[in-house]
């Protein structure tokens, strides 16, 4: 049986979305800036997609700027706002829950002379609005907090933090890549100034993302050039991908509640079964989390081994262990939640989508405990973490 349980990594492209895109990969190849019918058609298609994406998050179409990805939207927001407001102050606040496409631009801003505060979550991966409040200085111009963590599923109190920022005239950005298309997201209700999103997180194509920019919000472009996207993002538009993002947004809006109910049922059943295994810890917030997201740390074994053995059984999941990352470090998100690194190495994440079934969950609940048992038989820590320090330090990680 094949079970794709890695929907936080990406989603398959929906058939209806592909169909909507196809004309723009074939005969409708016009440049949206051209004045003849081919160009007009492409331009109209983009504006239609803009309205569809706006409809999903309750913004005005003019507040949507298309980008190549969620990562680009995050880079655009952080760098664009910091540079636009640098003469008012040079302090930026982000959290330890953020994606690399927030953390690395934040480090880049530090090199430009900005000061960045990295706010820690609690043990559930939850950012206390008060800890953001405490980090604010007279110099703070921008706060960026992820809407929900793809690693542990916790949904952050973005509305409260946006209010705190607003009261102090600080621009507020949220990375909505993991939430838009997975839970209801209303930018007016949340009160955010900017929000990033990615089409492939809701069955749209890769290569399409967007940044919501509240009307009246000044921002410096990331890509300078022509007048595309109102001069805020230059480059001839990726028309097929944008059309696909629009179509995916339209369908997602209609089926969101059905999808949430479906994946939550699957998630709850999996969590129920997995938590019966000894020495397994649930990570992230138990209730306040993405409906289709289950994350655990399995003690005494390592994540990549689990992923490979699951994969051999046709079950595809994710991990935040050091060995699965090119950086060879345990997930900074898990570490910031206070999970010790030897436990964080046993991290595993299952994320569900529309096409998953209860049969797949039952199959996984048969296979997964056996895989854990097998890897524990190989482990020198099968009986516990005694003698943790023997063997010396991490010399090989230089």
């Amino acid at each position: 049986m094949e079970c794709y349980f890695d929907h936080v990594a990406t989603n398959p492209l929906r058939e209806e979305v592909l169909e909507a895109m196809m004309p723009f990969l074939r005969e409708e190849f016009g440049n949206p800036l051209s004045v003849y019918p081919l160009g007009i058609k492409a331009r109209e298609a983009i504006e239609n997609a803009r309205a569809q994406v706006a409809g999903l998050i309750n913004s005005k179409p003019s507040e949507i700027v298309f980008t190549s990805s969620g990562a680009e939207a995050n880079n655009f927001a952080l760098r664009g706002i910091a540079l636009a407001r640098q003469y008012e102050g040079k302090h930026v606040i982000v959290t330890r829950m953020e994606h690399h496409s927030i953390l690395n631009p934040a480090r880049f801003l530090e090199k430009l002379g900005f000061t960045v505060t990295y706010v820690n979550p609690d043990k559930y991966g939850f950012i206390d609005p008060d800890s953001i409040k405490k980090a604010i200085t007279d110099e703070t111009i921008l706060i960026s907090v992820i809407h929900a963590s793809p690693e542990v599923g916790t949904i952050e109190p973005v509305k409260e933090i946006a209010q705190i920022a607003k009261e102090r005239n600080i621009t507020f950005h949220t990375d909505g890549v993991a939430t838009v298309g997975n839970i209801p997201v209303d930018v007016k209700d949340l009160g955010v100034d900017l929000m990033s999103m990615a089409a492939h997180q809701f069955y749209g194509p890769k290569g399409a993302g967007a940044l919501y920019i509240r009307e009246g919000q000044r921002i410096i472009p990331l890509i300078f050039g022509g007048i595309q996207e109102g001069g805020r993002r230059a480059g001839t538009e990726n028309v097929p991908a944008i059309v696909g993002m629009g179509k995916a947004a339209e369908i997602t809006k209609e089926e969101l509640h059905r999808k949430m109910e479906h994946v939550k049922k699957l998630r709850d059943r999996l969590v129920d079964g997995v938590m019966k295994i000894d020495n397994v810890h649930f990570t992230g917030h138990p209730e306040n989390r993405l409906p289709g997201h289950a994350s655990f740390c399995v003690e005494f074994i390592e994540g990549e081994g689990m992923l490979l053995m699951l994969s051999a059984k046709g079950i595809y999941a994710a991990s935040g262990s050091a060995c699965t990352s090119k950086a060879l470090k345990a997930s900074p998100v898990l570490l910031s939640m206070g999970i010790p690194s030897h436990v964080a190495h046993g991290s595993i994440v299952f994320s569900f989508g529309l096409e998953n079934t209860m049969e797949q969950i039952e199959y996984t609940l048969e296979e997964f405990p056996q895989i854990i048992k097998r890897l524990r038989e190989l482990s020198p820590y099968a009986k516990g973490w005694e003698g943790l320090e023997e063997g010396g330090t991490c010399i090989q990680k230089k």
Partner: protein
Amino acid sequence: MYTKEVMDHFMNPRNVGEMPDADGIGVEGNPVCGDVMKLFIKVKDDRIVDAKFQTFGCGAAIAVSSMITEMVKGKTLDEALEISKEKVAEALGGLPPQKMHCSNLGADALRKAIEDYKSKKRQN
């Protein structure tokens, strides 16, 4: 990302488990970094007659452990000391570059197991 040989040794590891009457034990790595290998050897007339391992780590770490236990069996201690990280990786058809150092603990664990055997022998 892994070769057929790595996947074979990971999915069907050889010589797994503790060896209660081991003549030498070597531990390399640290669970904080993500990979730990514990290697047990049985020695007779300066020759390794049996080897077993326990490993906490990724696919590469487990495959390396399995492979080195196969490689050392029947070798004299001097021959075993010749086994380098590179030779283990080569026997596995290569390792991804980022795994070459962190997960390739077999040769170091083996060296420690042989040292352990020699120091025990001196004490007797």
